[in-house]
């Protein structure tokens, strides 16, 4: 014991005895600091990311059909995994709920769809066609007509400009005749005599001249919306209202709503404002902001075509006053208005929203309106449904995350329509059609050999085709009924689901609960597989594993380097102390004493500097925990579960740091310690000579 005390005293005394010790110490200090800070950051990110994933869509665990080719990947964007459907959700919900730790089982399915918007004039013509078909009030029809007339006038002006710069023959001469006809007073005077004939003319001869048709890609989760909103308590309704219980309907993600459905010029203004006000960026120094301004300056057509004649006059008056200009060309005025800099941007932003936006449709769609979306069904058909948009939503703390905001929410019945589950009836109908046609499908590799053996010509005769007979099986559609229909809980549950999110009462018991749930599924032959939220999140969920791997790899590299350097340094130090060790051996020091001396000296050195590293690292983490690490981009916003990550000290990292220091110092000192034990007293004397 006295020897140990003596050795410890000597070790502490020798810490700063040589420059080499300081170098070794600093390497250990840096390694432990890195380990503590990195470990705490990764652990905090793990926790925040789990909050993001569990709280947005995944729940604590997911179940899906074990026979599926893929496994769920909830955040993979357009990569929709190939999952077999659960044919009847009601049959699996009960058994899953039998686990006492399960709070809710929410049916879910992910799909992607397309929303097609015709060009600007197509959209107004569609409104007019609907108004004429439904015999809507005369004022509304006249207003739409006046808007279309204004659009025709804009197109005619554009064509006039194009004619001056385009090469001869670039424009179809018929197009000039058609636009002249559409802009003539005679055309509009005779409109009411044959509205549909006039509409056909405008749709087929004029509308194609505006090439600004657009489509929006939507990712959505089909779910029992009532159950979903109750189970995922981070969900907040931003605009409109929640979908009433049992109704068909959709909630658009606020992020998607702002970025996809908003007037592009307004969205660009919002982006510039956020950068200028919240991120303190300067337009003069930021090429991205300058590019947004340039786009707004050049792309004024979207606004010009939105305005009817009266609105055009009012907007022009606002622009002339703001700019102090007498210009009467609206595109030129808008272009000048959007030409902003750091001095005038916020003022123009205010003018836009206060005085111009009231004349515009800022969003293509408002809560309460119908949206037509379509998707490829499981059987390959394109299926479209009309869904009422009740409002927009966001997940609290993840408002600006494109990842969390990528998914909109759709009712389960509409989801099932778009999914197009292949029922036995559908299969029978296909077989019947195939049989009636009597056609022989020929595989690609045999096509030329099988198809071109004999004569290719046959005389045939006409056969009367009766449209009504052929259409006999067609369904009569009742679109309005679908929108207003209220579905019972049984109707919602007794049908296809692609999987389900499981939310736990006590998330800390995730592993045990998953094990139990899998046992229930196997026992009841449900054919389901249970996975945790991390796996369900797809590649995103593996991010923390990757981050941890990188951290451990970097730490390992640092300490392997440290190990080699410490080893060499201690060897050199031992060689310098041959005389001292030889003398100690000559006066009776045992080999074990010498071994212990070298080991303890190195370990003490490591522990002292390691402790300093741990303290510095802890201090740094505590400071970060107070000030927060800003999320620089959308990706980090999701990982941080908000705009900033507030890391906390990880006990595991502190303990791990000390264990690693001990291990590295012991290993690095082992060889020189053994070498020191072999020093003979005679060597001390020889060196004296």
């Amino acid at each position, binding site marked *: 014991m006295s020897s140990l005390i003596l050795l410890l005293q000597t070790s502490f005394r020798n810490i700063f005895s040589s420059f080499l010790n300081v170098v070794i110490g600093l390497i250990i200090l840096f390694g432990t600091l890195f380990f503590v800070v990195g470990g705490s950051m990764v652990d905090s990110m793990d926790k925040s990311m789990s909050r993001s994933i569990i709280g947005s869509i995944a729940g604590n665990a997911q179940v899906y059909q074990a026979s599926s*080719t893929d496994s769920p990947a909830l955040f993979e964007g357009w990569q929709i995994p*190939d999952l077999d459907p659960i044919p009847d959700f009601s049959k699996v919900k009960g058994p899953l709920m039998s686990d006492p730790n399960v709070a809710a089982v929410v049916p879910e399915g992910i799909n992607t769809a397309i929303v097609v918007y015709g*060009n600007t004039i197509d959209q107004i013509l*569609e409104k007019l*066609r609907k108004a004429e078909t439904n015999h809507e009030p005369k004022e509304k029809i006249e207003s739409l007509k006046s808007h279309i007339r204004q659009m025709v006038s804009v197109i005619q002006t554009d064509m006039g400009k194009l004619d001056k710069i385009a090469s001869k*023959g670039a424009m179809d001469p018929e197009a000039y005749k058609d636009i002249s006809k559409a802009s003539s007073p005679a055309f509009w005077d005779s409109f009411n005599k044959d509205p*549909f004939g006039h509409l*056909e003319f405008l*749709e*087929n*001869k004029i*509308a*194609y001249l505006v090439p600004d*048709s657009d489509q929006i890609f939507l990712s959505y989760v089909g779910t029992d919306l009532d159950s979903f909103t109750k189970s995922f308590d981070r969900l907040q309704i931003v605009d409109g209202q929640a979908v009433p219980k049992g109704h068909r309907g959709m909630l658009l993600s606020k992020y998607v709503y702002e970025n996809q459905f908003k007037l592009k010029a307004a969205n660009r203004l919002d982006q510039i404002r956020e950068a200028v006000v919240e991120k303190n960026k300067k337009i003069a120094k930021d090429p991205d902001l300058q590019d947004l301004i340039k786009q707004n300056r050049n792309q004024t057509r979207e606004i010009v075509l939105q305005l009817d004649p009266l609105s055009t006059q009012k907007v022009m008056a606002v622009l002339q006053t703001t700019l102090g200009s007498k210009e009467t060309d609206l595109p030129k005025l808008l272009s000048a208005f959007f030409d902003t800099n750091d001095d005038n941007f916020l003022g123009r932003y205010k003018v836009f929203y206060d005085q111009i936006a009231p004349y515009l449709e800022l969003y293509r769609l408002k809560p309460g309106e119908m949206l*037509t979306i379509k998707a*490829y069904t*499981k*059987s*390959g*058909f394109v*299926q*479209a*449904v*009309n869904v009422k948009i009740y409002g927009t939503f966001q997940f609290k703390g993840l408002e600006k995350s494109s990842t969390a905001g990528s998914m909109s929410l759709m009712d389960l019945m509409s989801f099932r329509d778009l999914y197009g589950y*292949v029922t036995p009836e559908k299969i029978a*109908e*296909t077989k019947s*059609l*195939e049989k*009636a*046609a009597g*056609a022989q*499908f*020929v595989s*690609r590799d045999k*096509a*030329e050999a099988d*198809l*071109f*053996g*004999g004569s*290719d*010509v*046959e*005389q*045939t*005769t*006409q*056969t*009367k*085709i009766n*449209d009504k007979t*052929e*259409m006999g*099986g*067609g*369904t*009569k*559609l009742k*679109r309005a009924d679908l929108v207003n229909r209220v579905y019972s809980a049984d109707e919602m549950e007794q049908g296809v689901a692609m999987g389900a999110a499981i939310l736990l009462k006590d998330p800390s018991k995730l592993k045990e609960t998953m094990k139990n749930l899998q046992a229930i599924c196997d026992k009841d032959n449900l054919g389901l597989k249970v996975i945790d939220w991390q796996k369900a999140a797809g590649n995103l969920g593996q991010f923390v594993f990757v981050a941890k791997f990188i951290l451990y790899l970097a730490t390992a590299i640092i300490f392997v380097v440290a190990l080699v350097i410490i080893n060499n340094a201690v060897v050199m130090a031992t060689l310098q102390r041959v005389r001292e060790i030889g003398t100690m051996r000559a006066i009776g020091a045992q080999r074990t004493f010498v071994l212990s001396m070298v080991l303890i000296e190195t370990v003490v050195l490591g522990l002292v500097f390691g402790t300093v590293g741990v303290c510095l690292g802890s201090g740094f983490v505590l400071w970060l925990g107070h000030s927060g690490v800003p999320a620089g981009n959308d990706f980090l916003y999701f990982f941080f579960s908000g705009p900033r990550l507030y890391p906390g000290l990880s006990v595991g990292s502190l303990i791990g740091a000390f264990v690693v220091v001990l291990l590295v110092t012991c290993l690095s000192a082992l060889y020189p310690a053994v070498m020191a034990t072999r020093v003979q007293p005679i060597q001390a004397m020889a060196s004296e000579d």
Partner: protein
Amino acid sequence: MNRNHFYHQDTKAPSKTKEYFNFSKPKSNSLKASLVSWCLGGERLLKVSLLLALMFPAAVFAGTLTKAEMVDVLKGIDLRIRSGGDYKALVYLEQHQKDKPDVAQEAIVYRRDADQKLMILFTKPKTEAGKGYLRVDRNLWYYDPTVGKWERRTDRERIGGTDSNREDFDQSNLAVQYEPAFAGEEKLGAFDVWHLKLTVKSGIDVAYPIVEFWVDEATGNYLKRQDFALSGRLMRTSYDPKWNKVYSDIKKDNLWFPKEIHIYDEIDKANSTLVVIQSVDLSALPENMFTKAWLETKSR
């Protein structure tokens, strides 16, 4: 190899089709025949063949068509497919896709070639009934009664989600739309065919800017077609192995249509489509039927 006999095989009234193909047998074939007969025999055949191959363009011996002859071939195809009056056909479409069940649909195709109008109305299965396409001038519209919406589509539209496109059902305008080039004389199964390479003329919108046709020398029907993107990438291959003809009183000639079209997707190789034209009716159609309003009424 006889290019002439098929132009006169129609037994009914004289046709315009014959005018387009009333050209005499090209001299190149006679020259080829005499040279070959002279050369046949022992080693001399090989030596002379090599010498001639160096001295003369290969096309002389391959039955090359002149540009005018190729345009006539295309005009012939166009004229045969064109209907003098109205046209209605009951069509079956079958789509095969990887890892998906087969899709079978039935549709009625309506055409009024004089006005360049086309309508495709899906009748089966029940879920698809009432959906349809309407082509008026440059516009191809798609109507879905389940949502009551019209959408503008391009000429590349996959009709009913299959590998077929509008041109497979519409009248043909090959001679107007494309510049032909001769690619060779080939064998396609039991058939001798001309291989033509067509490139779209400037300013004309078509589904595919480059198309290759394999035209039966004996009948003038195209049997195989390959569609390419502008980049030269092969997009799809289709076979039209059987052609039916039905006499049209208005046209005073036969109207030709492919009985079957086998289409193979060259991008997604697992996808293919079979189109069968089951029956054709040349009765007059209602005057106002090629309108949005008419198609909408079918599902109301």
